[in-house]
């Protein structure tokens, strides 16, 4: 530790992104993606979509979360403090989603249209939404990191998840799955535009949240995280899929290209979470008088 360099200036949050922190990044993203896909799949009543979203959350999100823990065998302790901890709540959302989702998948397969199926679809949907939402709330509540202190963050995370959900739905449709392709494409278009708008508003707002919030924005637009922002979030996450999506309004597009667009969307979503975690910096512990 070199004292003078520490905590006086811009100090990034590292625990949840650097090194093993990448597990947490993937977990955060797949929560949004899985939750979003489940909700979209409910809309399309796509069993494939629901199954995939269940797998994403149960296997990838659950797995990466577990892999991230310092003491994985104690994971069950996480449920014990939902009164105050959003992580405990999130863990419960995930558990409930996995249980409700599993029942729902079974019911949808064996007893489609039954009252029970509808009830569990509703329960699964609520949990899917909660799973997509809670990580945003966790970050929003972090007192020391101004860049995250925005009610827009959970909204952004949910929208981004739903966007990914529509993207995967498109892929499912192209693979011959039970999804209406043009509706999925339309959803993608709307969400892409909405997402882009929220990102712009978010950055504009963060720019005014204390010096450190501004530094986080600068870091993202011009600093070390800029390549990820401009290539990952802007180009891959918005511009390319949006171009493909709007071009497809007017002309026939090869399905390979559409799949490429979906892949770009997913990468864009990952890039977004990555940067949000990466540029989250603490207010200096001791304010340096100017």
């Amino acid at each position, binding site marked *: 530790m070199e004292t003078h360099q520490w905590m006086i200036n811009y100090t990034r949050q590292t625990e949840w992104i650097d090194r093993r922190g990448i597990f947490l990044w993937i977990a955060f993203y797949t929560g949004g993606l899985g939750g979003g896909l489940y909700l979209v799949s409910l809309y399309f009543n796509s069993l494939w979509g629901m199954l995939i979203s269940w797998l994403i959350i149960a296997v990838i999100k659950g797995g990466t979360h577990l892999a991230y823990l310092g003491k994985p065998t104690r994971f069950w302790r996480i449920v014990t403090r939902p009164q105050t*901890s959003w992580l405990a709540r999130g863990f419960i959302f995930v558990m409930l989603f996995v249980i409700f989702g599993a029942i729902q998948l079974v019911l949808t397969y064996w007893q489609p249209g039954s009252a029970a199926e509808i009830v569990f679809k509703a329960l699964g949907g609520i949990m899917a939404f909660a799973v997509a939402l809670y990580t945003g709330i966790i970050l929003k509540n972090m007192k020391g990191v101004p860049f995250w202190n925005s009610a827009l963050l959970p909204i952004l995370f949910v929208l981004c998840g739903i966007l990914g959900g529509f993207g995967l739905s498109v892929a499912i449709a192209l693979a011959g799955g039970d999804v209406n392709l043009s509706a999925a494409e339309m959803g993608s278009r709307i969400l892409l535009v909405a997402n882009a708008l929220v990102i712009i508003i978010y950055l504009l707002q963060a720019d005014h949240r204390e010096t450190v919030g501004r530094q986080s924005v600068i870091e993202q637009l011009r600093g070390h995280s800029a390549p990820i922002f401009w290539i990952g979030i802007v180009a891959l996450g918005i511009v390319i899929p949006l171009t493909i999506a709007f071009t497809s309004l007017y002309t026939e597009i090869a399905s390979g290209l559409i799949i490429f667009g979906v892949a770009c969307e997913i990468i864009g979503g990952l890039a977004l979470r990555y940067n949000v975690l990466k540029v989250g910096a603490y207010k200096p512990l001791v304010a340096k008088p100017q």
Partner: protein
Amino acid sequence: MRWGMVVDLSKCVRCYACLAACRIEHFLPMGINWPKLVAMDTGGDDPTVSTYSVRCNQCKDAPCVEVCPTGATQQREDGIVSIDQDKCVGCRYCVVACPYQNRTFLSKDKDQGFFPGIIQTDFEKAGKKLYKHQVGTTEKCNFCAERIDAGTAKGLKPGVDREATPACVNTCPARALTFGDLDDPNSEVSRLISEKKGFQLHPEYNTDPSVYFIDGKIGQSDEKKVDDEPQKELKAIGVGD
């Protein structure tokens, strides 16, 4: 009762004794410091060199307690925020949530020993027995709760009796650290906070830290007397020889 600490910025001389004493007291793994020094130098018209000896603030309204999903982090009745290492799952939520960055996750690479790959020293071996650290959990300053508990059990007073006082406070050669009960208006810490306008770091977080800082000038110079031209006495002074 609420244990608190006052750090006097006009006294701290950046000697790092507090860190060293803590490492010994708690057999800290090589990569970890519970207290830390934040050094700051400013230029300008009223330049200052300040060192903030920081450690867990034991906030009354502690974000870490709130976010801990397992209840491993708890607040004791005396205000100390404690971690039950056996309950911690190592999710690092508290590490990120502490706005003062005072928590550290003990990862394997932070526990490589003093001389990694060469020897494990006798002191480290003794430490493994005397003070357990668990890789994969989160750590922070506990105001030497062990000393406080053992001391108060003997009827000693933390902040007054050395045996019941945190190690960093005891060792500070500059006497920049003062410990005591914030709830007792007659304690040294309460007196310093009220007399010297003690302040907490980032009060806007509404966490109500139990660590206060004070600052001030050294000496009570009466500069007026000096700035007024003294009476000139130029008459020759007879000197012996």
